[in-house]
């Protein structure tokens, strides 16, 4: 029993320390973001890598999710004569929940692990020390462009993914359930409100901060050579996925309380 209590208290202490360190890291990011110099070239490069590089896969996932959801909801609701509700259900669930979540999980896997591996490798090969030794701030040079690029790119990807899903849903509604395109579009437009798009955008911004701050923090603290780099990538994907899924519930609750 004593062993179990010690184990739990140690775990809790470590997690509290991690939260504290992440908080300080984020504050350092904000400090560097709001003071000069700002690396526009590096930001642009990161937007290309993070945003444009993830565009095709995000759109495909959004589109396919729309196809599958419409198919499942369509056949499910046909039994109860409710197929007319498919456009509303698909568009709302895609924009509010599925598109931000799927896009963020995808970015956590694709970009989060990449950032932690890249910065982790730089750390174990003393390149981060070199950035400092050459009289520059590693947070300013490495973290600010990555986090800012994710904050700009991820919400746009999330919203685009949602709209691609709606397009996919329209194709299935038309081909499988003979729903006129005009009716589908009309239903979607009368269902979606600005706050739904805003909610999706806001969630993605939050998830972008979570993914990239975790990834950069872990990269900066990578130890144990190449094995440490691999461990850092895994750690980032697992932690950010859990935080995305858990925090999504609370963000949804807050958005519903505020706008519904």
């Amino acid at each position, binding site marked *: 029993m004593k062993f179990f209590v010690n184990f739990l208290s140690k775990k809790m202490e470590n997690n509290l320390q991690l939260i504290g360190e992440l908080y300080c890291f984020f504050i350092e990011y904000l400090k560097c973001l709001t003071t000069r110099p700002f690396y526009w070239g590096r930001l642009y490069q990161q937007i290309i890598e993070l945003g444009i590089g993830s565009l095709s896969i995000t759109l495909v996932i959004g589109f396919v999710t729309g196809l599958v959801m419409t198919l499942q909801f369509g056949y499910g609701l046909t039994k109860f004569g409710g197929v007319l509700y498919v456009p509303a259900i698909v568009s709302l669930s895609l924009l509010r929940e599925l598109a931000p979540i799927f896009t963020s999980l995808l970015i956590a896997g694709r970009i989060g692990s990449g950032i932690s591996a890249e910065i982790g490798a*730089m750390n174990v*090969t*003393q*390149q981060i*020390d*070199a950035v*400092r*030794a*050459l*009289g*520059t*701030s590693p947070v300013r040079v490495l973290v600010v462009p990555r986090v800012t690029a994710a904050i700009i790119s991820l919400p746009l990807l999330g919203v685009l993914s949602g709209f691609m899903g709606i397009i996919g849903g329209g194709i299935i509604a038309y081909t499988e359930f003979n729903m006129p395109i005009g009716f589908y579009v009309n239903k979607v437009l009368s269902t979606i409100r600005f706050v739904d798009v805003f909610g999706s955008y806001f969630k993605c911004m939050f998830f972008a901060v979570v993914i990239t701050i975790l990834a950069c923090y872990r990269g900066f603290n990578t130890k144990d050579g190449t094995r440490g780099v691999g461990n850092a990538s895994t750690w980032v994907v697992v932690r950010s996925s859990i935080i995305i899924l858990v925090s999504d519930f609370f963000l949804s609750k807050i958005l519903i309380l505020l706008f519904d």
Partner: protein
Amino acid sequence: MKTILEVKNMRKSFGEKLVHRDVSFALYEGETLGLLGNSGTGKSVLLRSLIGIENADSGEIYFKNNRIDQLSEEQLFKVRTKISYSFQYNALFDSDNVFENIAYPLFEHTKLSEEEILQKVTQALKEVNLSGVESLLPSDLSGGMQKRAGLARSIILNPDIILYDEPTAGLDPINVENVCDLINKFRAKGISSILCTHDIPAAKKVCDRLIILDEGKVAFTGTVAEFESSNDPVVQKFLMNH
């Protein structure tokens, strides 16, 4: 001789492990000081502490009579343009080509035009006998060439002091000779240096004075001639181990 860098009573530990108990020494203008010691005596930690990459637990560091160990990270950036650091494994940015690596400090700390920066980089590469590799990635270079590219990056801002961390480690005899020649060339230009190394022949070739770190403090200080003729048990022990 005028002191350019001085360390007083430096103490540094990692958890329970005490690395430096009480380290004090001075570096004079234009000299090359060799920092010797067995593995684990904290030679690299000492070098890193001098520019604040590592923070000492206590003690004082003076650069040109100004105390620098209490400066903030932002304030240290300026100091680091005057005290450059040559890393053991070069620490070149592996995603950037040689030009971008060497030009990095110029882009960060000067307002030179791209053309002027290109000229300076070309000149620095020429100085380390590495012309024509600007567009190559560090991974395309041999170990000796990477070392020289790292040295070119170290001198690009015309520093007052260069800190060399094991500059000859892992190099073949010809490249060791090349690196020693370069260190002597930089000394001839008036740059002071601290060189931490295990390589005694190289240290004898380039250093004016040598100090030996042992049991967390400076156990020997003297010229190369004094080192060679010393009967000091610390020197004898060190020579026996090497």
